Every structure is written in C-alpha cells, then in structure tokens.
C-alpha cells in the first residue's frame, strides 16, 4: 500500500479510504446481464450437425408453465445436460416436441427460434449463477 501511494504523490491520501470503499461497494452491484439467469445452452450435437447451438430460456417458459410440466410430465431431469435430447425424439413428440408441435407452441420447422446461439458456445447453465463455486449446473 505504501508503494502504491508513494507512486501517486499528487493524489490526496485522504481520498484513498473512499476509493477502497467504492471498490468494495462495486462488488455488490448486481452484474448487468449477459445471458439471462437460467439460460441453458445445448451444443452437444448442434454445431457438429451444422446448425447454431440451442438456447433454452427458463425465464420465458416459466411465465407460462410451472416447473412440474417439463420436469415431471415431459420428463426433463433437473440437471442441465442430464438428458440426451435428439431432434428425432422432438419430432416424435418427446422433450421439446411435447409442446413445440404447432398446437401448444410453434412447431419444429422454426429452426432458428431455438437454434439461436452464437457458434462455439459450450453447453451448460448461463446467466450469472453467482456462487462461482465448482457447480454441477
């Protein structure tokens, strides 16, 4: 600390505690989004198949559906990456295809509405799950 202030002779030392406090407070400002909290990226197979990664937005789906619909009735396990989701299953009415069938929600011909991610994204949960720990999400 003395080296730091020594290099800044013109800087009034009485402001230093304020700056330190300011820096500390900055840590508590909520991170302004990148991805929205709970966004899931699925890119296990998409890019290999020549199409953009899939982005699943939890925030949008939970406005219209409670967790039970997808995580009990449709059968998505409650762990990102736990289910192997193939387009052939979706076409057959499983997973996303239980709703994305042009009846409950728009159908599977609208490829770019799901396959909307930037190339190169890794699969997983995005959106600032703020624990920063060795999570398994």
């Amino acid at each position, binding site marked *: 600390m003395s080296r730091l202030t020594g290099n800044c002779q013109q800087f009034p030392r009485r402001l230093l505690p304020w700056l330190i406090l300011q820096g500390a407070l900055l840590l508590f400002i*909520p991170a302004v989004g990148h991805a929205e909290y709970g966004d899931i990226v699925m890119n296990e197979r998409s890019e290999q198949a020549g199409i953009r990664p899939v982005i699943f937005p939890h*925030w949008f789906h939970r406005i219209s559906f409670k967790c039970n619909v997808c995580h009990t009735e449709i059968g998505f396990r409650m762990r990102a990456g736990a289910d192997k989701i193939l387009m052939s299953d979706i076409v057959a009415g499983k997973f996303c295809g239980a709703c994305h069938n042009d009846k409950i929600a728009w159908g599977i011909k609208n490829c770019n*509405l799901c396959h*909307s991610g930037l190339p190169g994204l890794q699969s997983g949960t995005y959106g600032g799950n703020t624990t920063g720990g060795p999570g398994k999400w």
Partner: protein
Amino acid sequence: MRILAVWIMLFIAQDTCSAGPVDMIERHWRPLAKDELHDPANPALKLLHDPAKSLSVLSRSGDGNQVNWAAALERKEIQPRISLSTDTQTEVLDLNILFPNTGEMAMVNFPHKQHTEWLVCGNCHEEIFKYKSHATKFGMFEILNGQYCGRCHGAVAFPLTDCNRCHSVARVSSVAPAKAH
C-alpha cells in the same frame, strides 16, 4: 479535486441506494442481440420475446432474473399452468420446516407452500430429499456445489447470494421447529 470528491460521494450514495430496499433497485435486461449468447446475425432473433419487456412488469428482486417469481405468482402477475392436461390436480402443501443448525447464520425456514406452487412432491422426494424431515444431511458446501437446494437455487431459482430469503428466522426467535407429519 473537490469536484472529484463530490463525484465519488455521489457515486457512493448511489451504491448505497442500490443496496437498499428492493423497490429502489434499478433493473436492466440486455436485449437478446447483445447478451453475448444469441447470434445477432440470426434473422429470427426479432421474433423472440425481449426479457426487458416481459420481466419489467413482474415483482422485483435484486438477483437472478431480477424478478421475485414467488411473489409474481402469488400476486397473479403470471398464471403459469401446472400441467399440460386440464384435469390434473396438484396439491399445495402449507408446511414449514425449520432448520436450526445453521451456525451463526439465521435459521432456515423451508416453506413447502411456495415450492409446491411450482413443483410436485416427486421432483424433490426422494431422489434429492427424504420425505422424513431432517433425515437428509446437507450443508452449504453441497448446496454451493449444485446439490440439494442448489439443484435449483443457483441455476434457475433465486441464487445463493440472496442469503436472507432462506436464512430468515432470527436465532432469538421463539419459533418452534415444525414437524413433518
């Protein structure tokens, strides 16, 4: 230099505000094209719903989606369906479980009510938690690692930085531990 000092003071005041009541927090959502997740070159992007438009009308929170989803549901700001079929009945269980062994933190109150508004018993029992209260042993280390409560909290339900929403019962409180049955 005086101007600089005033600027810093103002900035600190602003910060203090944002750490205050939830109503005071300014909320910002990035447009999908700028969230560094969606491909801005995708021509269909404009057909997807914008988070700011959908979420700004819902009850506030300082974390996660910046929405208090439990409050939004309770106040009927959203009316999500719990089943794809119209004749499925689900039960809301109004049962609190108190976890007193939380070190120096306030004790944890687990409300079944808010959870069974969204989920059914089988989502948590018995794969994640035993039916019998306090039969499953877990701590913050496991939760931070994405297990137990951390299966959802920290991924999609309100994040683990929102300590006081779970650690909500002061240790001086005379609340008696709830029993499961």
